[in-house]
C-alpha cells in the first residue's frame, strides 16, 4: 500500500486565481468608495472659484454654448457704488457718461443707475453678458472686487468634461455640490 499523498488545500493555479479575484474585488470596492466619497452622495455641478480666477477671457470663448453659461455677477454688499466705476468705464474715459466709447463692456451688459450724488448702482444684464471678465479685471484692480464670474446653472449644460475647465489656466473650475451651486463673495477681495 502506497503512503497517502499529502493533500494541499489549494493548487498554485487556484491560489493565483483566488488572489486575482480578491484583488479585483478590493479594487472595485475602493473605486466605488472613492466615487461615493467624491460625489458625497449628491449630484455636482461646475463652478468658478472667484479667488482663483485670473480673468483670462477663456470663459467667453471656450463654452460649448453659443453664448457662454459663465456670467458676471455682482455682490452689491461689497460694491463702493463709485461714480467712476472701473468695471464700467474704460481706464481713461472721455467723460463719465454711458456713451459706448467710454464703456468697458464689449456688449453693454452693465447697467448704471443714479442713486444719489455721487453714488451709482451697477447691475448685470445676463442676457447680454458673455463672461469675458473685462469688468471683473477693472473692478478687482482698482476697486473692492464686487464683480466676479460665476457659472449660471439655468444655462450650463453641466458637461462631464467642461470645455472651459479644460482651458482654464489656473484650475479655477471646480465640481461643487448642486445644492450649493454658487461660490459667492461676501467680503471685499474674499470669497
Amino acid at each position, binding site marked *: 500500500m502506497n503512503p497517502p499523498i499529502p493533500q494541499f488545500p489549494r493548487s498554485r493555479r487556484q491560489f493565483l486565481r483566488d488572489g486575482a479575484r480578491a484583488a479585483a474585488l478590493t479594487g472595485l470596492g475602493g473605486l466605488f468608495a472613492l466615487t461615493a466619497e467624491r460625489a458625497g452622495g449628491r449630484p455636482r455641478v461646475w463652478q468658478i472659484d472667484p479667488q482663483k480666477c485670473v480673468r483670462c477671457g477663456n470663459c467667453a470663448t471656450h463654452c460649448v454654448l453659443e453664448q457662454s453659461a459663465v456670467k458676471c455677477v455682482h455682490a452689491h454688499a461689497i460694491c463702493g457704488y463709485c461714480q467712476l466705476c*472701473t468695471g464700467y468705464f474704460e481706464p481713461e474715459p472721455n467723460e463719465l457718461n454711458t456713451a459706448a466709447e467710454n464703456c468697458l463692456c464689449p456688449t453693454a451688459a452693465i447697467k448704471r443707475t443714479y442713486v444719489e450724488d455721487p453714488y451709482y448702482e451697477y447691475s448685470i444684464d445676463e442676457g447680454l453678458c458673455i463672461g469675458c471678465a473685462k469688468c471683473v479685471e477693472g473692478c478687482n484692480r482698482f476697486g473692492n472686487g464686487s464683480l466676479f464670474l460665476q457659472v449660471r446653472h439655468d444655462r450650463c449644460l453641466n458637461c462631464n468634461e467642461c470645455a472651459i475647465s479644460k482651458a482654464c489656466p489656473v484650475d479655477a473650475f471646480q465640481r461643487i455640490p448642486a445644492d450649493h451651486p454658487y461660490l459667492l463673495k461676501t467680503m471685499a477681495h474674499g470669497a
Partner: protein
Amino acid sequence: MKPSNRLTRRQFLRRGALGSGWVAVAGAALTASRGRGRAAAADANPFAYDLGNAAHTDPKLIHYETAAAFASGVGDARRLAFGPGDRLHVAGKTAITILDLRGAKLQEIPLAAPARCVAVGPDGMIYAGLRDHVEVFDASGRKLASWESPGKKVWLSGLAVGEKGIFAADAGNRVVLRYDPAGKVTARIGERNKQRNVPGLIVPSPYLDVALGPDGLLRVNNPGRHCIDIYTPDGDLELSWGKPTAAIEGFCGCCNPIAIEVLPDGRHLTCEKGLPRVKVYSATGQFDCVVAGPESFPENAKTGSISDKSDGVLGGLDAAVDSQGRICTLDLVTGRVAVMKAKAKV
C-alpha cells in the same frame, strides 16, 4: 527546421521597454503642448484690460532714487509714521514696530489687536489706531490710555498729531475725528454739510488718511472724489484739489489717492492703489514729480495680489516723510519699505 516566430524572453523585455519609453515620450510631449496651449490661451486674451501708457512712468518725471530698501519684518504692515530722531514707526498686526532707516528694529510695542494706523507727537507720544479706538503710549512704549470707541462702524485708518489735537480718520463713518489730549472727541470734520459748503468724504474702501501741514491745516484724502481736501482744525473746507485720470498728473481708478503726507516745504505726497504710484504735488495741487511708479511695486501692481489679505485690506501703499525730506514708502502687499531721496539736480 521551421524558423520560430516566437520572441525570446530577452527580446520581449527589450521591445516592451522600448515601447513603454515611446509611450512615455509621447505622453510628455502631449502634456507639454497642452500646457503651452493653456498659456497661449491665457496670453492671447481678446478681452484684456488695457491700461495703456499709464502702466509705465516717464523716467524724466521720477525725481527720487532709492537710498535703501528692506523688508519691514512687520506682519500685515499698514501705515508708517516718523517720530523724533527720524525713527520709523510701522503699524502692524501685533505691534507698533520702530525701525531705523536701515531696517534695524529699535523697539516694539505689543498690541492686543492689529494697528491700522499710527502717529507720533513731537514729544514722542505714540498714538496707535486700532480698528475702533485709539491707544496712547509714551516714548518708552508704556501704555498710558485706551480711548473709548467713538461709536458704531468705526474703522480708523489714519492718524495725525498737532498742536490743536489728535486727528483720526474714520473710514467707516467717512469722517475725521478731532480728539483733545484726554481722548474726548471735540469735532467731526469732513461730514457732508450744505451750510458749511462741505460736500462730504466718499470712501468706497477703508482708505481714509489725514495729515497736518506746516500751516496747521488738515489734509484729508477724498478717494471717491479723486481729490485732497484741506480743512481748518475746526472743520472749514479751505481748498480741494485733484482730478480723476489714469494720466500721471491725476488720480487713477475708482477711488484714489489712498494716503496723504505733507513734505517739510509744504508740498503734498500722495499714494495710489491699483496703479501703485507715489507722487508729489505742490502746496496748491499742481503735479510736481513722481517718487516711485508702478515699476517699483511689481507685486503690488498685479491684480489680485491682495486676495489673501483679510478684513478689507486691499493692498496699496503708504508713505511718510522724515525731517530731512526723505520719503519712506511701504508696500502693503510685500511689507517692504523703501527709503527714497531726491536725486541730485543736474
